[in-house]
């Protein structure tokens, strides 16, 4: 009984039903775990596992379509599933609080940050205005926001993502709740910002003894901050154990699979690239977006002075945070946009300034796979039509193109008979493979992967990465791999270039850069990578 008293959150045999037409019956099936005061428990799972549903149920914010059909959720001993709406409203922000994933949209754009924090105080306490303001300044200071007075008077759109998330945390913790639920709060943030927010949450937790339920899909984060971990699959808690135990010796096969799928930060040993032939080279590539016709001088370059070379059979990675310009470079090289300056040399010929018709021969040789598998295929055309479009543009007959498409589907391990299906009939990972097949259909020399695995679950990600590796070897392709994820870069790339604010700050073989980063920004990136002290999958040398 005394153990139960320490439980800030106790989920017992929770069952939540899905509406009739869903792909399974239950969103959550008999889940059970607990969070103690002063403890941080991570709830880990892939997309669709039901982790957000559990969080919403705890706050009493389940969408109307979902119904809790069994079990209990005890917050500080009180069952919130049985509570009425009025009681739930009292409990929100006083006993339990929640912060969300997208700081960009989670704050009301037309109210100042101070007013939004003030609302919490005004609703739940009887404090007069002056006392509320003092409390707000305190909490804003606690979440380490600079210039609290100015912050309070600012509107959300004037703050960065990290700052907005701190405001959210301030709103959530201002009344010192016993439980904080964090639903993927750092997933949308840069890795350096993420490190700061994670540290902040840990610190505030220790200071106030709050119990934290941290939802994530990233095992690196788990390794970094969790005391205990609950692994969720299809609504079931398959394993619930202290972090060190779980990571060292996972009991359940699903947990083992998830952990094995996490790429290690230690670059694997790769054989030296045999070929010396350079497929593509850039010299001083730059792109500046004009900011309207009145303020040309204000424009900040998205990319500046980028000089790279990519060799046949080699994967060059470009690593950077959002706004670093890596996607801009990829799009320039793929000639989806025109660079402002510099040269792009393919076999000695400069394609940087060529226009549409002249680019046709070039396009055969450079292909790109995009980030979002759900928007990369025309939903109104069959998968087969999307794949044969390229070859047919270059004169292949429909039959030849289709038989080529069938071979490619086998190459990417999809059933060739499904060429006449539509994109919505495939999962995200499968769609991404279709996109790879489409890119390979016109036999390019260079394949650009622009954050191609960032939107995929970690297990699917591992499969697609393995596929890309295999393809690169078999077809002797050159590959340009854009990513923000250092782990992925470590496993996939031979050489790596680190970009910050439009420039390359460091470049070199991946083993060297990871082992001995020279530039301070590179070092900061590595410092910030969550779970860097844990090596996950053991990798054999190639």
């Amino acid at each position, binding site marked *: 009984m005394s153990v139960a008293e320490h439980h800030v959150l106790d989920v017992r045999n929770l069952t939540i039903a899905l509406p009739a037409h869903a792909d399974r019956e239950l969103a959550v099936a008999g889940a059970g775990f607990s969070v103690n005061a002063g403890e941080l428990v991570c709830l880990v799972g892939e997309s669709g596992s039901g982790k957000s549903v559990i969080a919403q149920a705890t*706050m009493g*914010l389940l969408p109307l379509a979902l119904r809790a059909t069994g079990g209990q959720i005890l917050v500080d001993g009180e069952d919130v599933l049985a509570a009425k709406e009025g009681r739930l409203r009292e409990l929100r922000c006083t006993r339990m609080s*929640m912060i969300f994933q*997208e700081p960009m949209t989670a704050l*009301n754009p037309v*109210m100042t940050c101070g007013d939004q924090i003030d609302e919490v105080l005004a*609703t739940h306490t009887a404090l007069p205005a002056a006392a509320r303001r003092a409390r707000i300044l305190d909490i804003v200071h606690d979440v380490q926001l600079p210039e609290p007075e100015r912050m309070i008077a600012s*509107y959300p759109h004037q703050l960065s993502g990290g700052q907005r998330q701190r405001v959210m945390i301030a709103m959530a913790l201002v009344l010192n709740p016993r439980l904080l639920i964090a639903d993927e709060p750092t997933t949308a943030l840069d890795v350096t910002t993420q490190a700061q927010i994670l540290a902040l949450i840990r610190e505030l937790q220790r200071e106030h003894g709050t119990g934290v339920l941290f939802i994530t899909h990233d095992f690196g984060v788990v390794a970094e901050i969790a005391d205990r971990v609950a692994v969720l699959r299809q609504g079931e808690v398959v394993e619930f154990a202290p972090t060190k135990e779980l990571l060292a010796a996972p009991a359940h096969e699903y947990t083992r699979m998830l952990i094995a799928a996490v790429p290690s930060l230690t670059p694997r040993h790769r054989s030296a690239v045999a070929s010396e032939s350079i497929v593509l080279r850039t010299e001083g590539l730059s792109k500046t977006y004009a900011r309207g016709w009145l303020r040309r001088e204000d424009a900040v370059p998205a990319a500046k002075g980028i000089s790279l070379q990519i060799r046949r059979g080699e994967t060059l990675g470009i690593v950077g945070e959002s706004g670093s310009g890596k996607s801009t470079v990829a799009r320039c090289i793929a000639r989806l946009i025109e660079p402002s300056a510099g040269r792009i040399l393919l076999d000695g010929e400069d394609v940087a300034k060529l226009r549409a018709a002249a680019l046709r021969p070039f396009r055969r040789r450079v292909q790109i796979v995009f980030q979002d598998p759900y928007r990369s295929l025309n939903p109104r055309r069959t998968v087969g039509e999307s794949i044969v479009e390229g070859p047919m543009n270059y004169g292949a007959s429909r039959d030849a193109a289709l038989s080529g498409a069938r071979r490619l589907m086998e190459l990417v391990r999809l059933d060739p008979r499904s060429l006449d299906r539509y994109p919505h009939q495939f999962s995200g990972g499968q769609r991404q493979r279709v996109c790879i097949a489409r890119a390979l259909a016109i036999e390019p020399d260079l394949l650009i992967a622009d954050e191609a695995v960032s939107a995929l679950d970690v297990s699917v990600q591992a499969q697609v990465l393995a596929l890309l590796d295999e393809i690169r070897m078999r077809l002797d392709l050159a590959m340009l791999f854009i990513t923000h994820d250092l782990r992925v870069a470590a496993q996939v790339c031979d050489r790596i270039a680190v970009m910050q604010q439009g420039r390359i700050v460091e470049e070199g073989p991946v083993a060297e850069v990871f082992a001995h980063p020279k530039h301070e920004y590179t070092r900061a990136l590595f410092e910030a990578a969550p779970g860097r002290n844990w090596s996950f999958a053991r990798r054999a040398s190639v």
Partner: protein
Amino acid sequence: MLAYIARRLLATIPVMAVVAVLVFSMLRLTSGDPAAIIAGAAANSQDIVDIRQKLGLDRPIVEQFAIWIGHVLSGDFGESFFFKKQVADLILDRVGPTLALATFTMVWSVLIAVPLGVIAANRQGTWVDRLVMGFSVLGFSVPVFVIGYTLIYVFSIRLNWLPVQGYQPIAEGLGGFIQRLILPSLTLSVIYIALIARITRTSILEVLGEDYIRTARAKGLPNRVVLMRHALRNAAVPIITVIGIGIAFLIGGVVVTESVFSIPGLGRLTVDAVLARDYPTVQAVILLFSIVYVLLNLLVDVAYTLLDPRIRY
């Protein structure tokens, strides 16, 4: 913020230029001698020569346009041979009733429609919502003059509560003024209320799906506060946008309503002028209405800056 207002002001100039060109070319697009058409059926050849000279109709067209614009900007809209008055005077005579009708209608339409939309959004799916939406589709579909005549039939002919037609200026008594404005205003407001209630409901429902509403609920705020402080304030921008655009419907409706209720306003003037082929008047009225519409929408743009801090900077 001033820069924003200045930019919006500048942006209206090309639009008004296009309107001016369109209106100007109206007369030149008819078959026949513009001077003769303006002079009307009962003119003699000396009149026609005078008109031709005054409007510069024998000069190149660009010059004609410049002359016309010059006149317009100094308030001279030409002379109506049909009504035998300066067009500017004609307009001044008739602007009062139209202004009264339009303002009255707009104000109380918004006052009724926005709350209706909020209530419908709040009770989505219930009979209240269906009633409001049903009324909205109906109000949008039944033509203005049909509504007008139905109301006249019910209230004036059968029940005899209100006068059938006519207009009384305020100067001659507030009671009569209001009494005569009730039915026309009611008629005109139906379409406006239908439009605004519908867009209010839609905007609020859309806003209610946003992330910050979820945050507001997670803070334990009561539903009323979530609705008014968070939802409505964010839905305000699309709502006043539509209020601005709906003014076009209002203007069109004014033309018809004044005909039905025999109100001596600008709408009636337009119709009479068109029937009489009195182009100077038609041109002037269209130009005027368009400018008013553009300026009112400019006001809407300025109102944005008050409602949405992101637009200020």
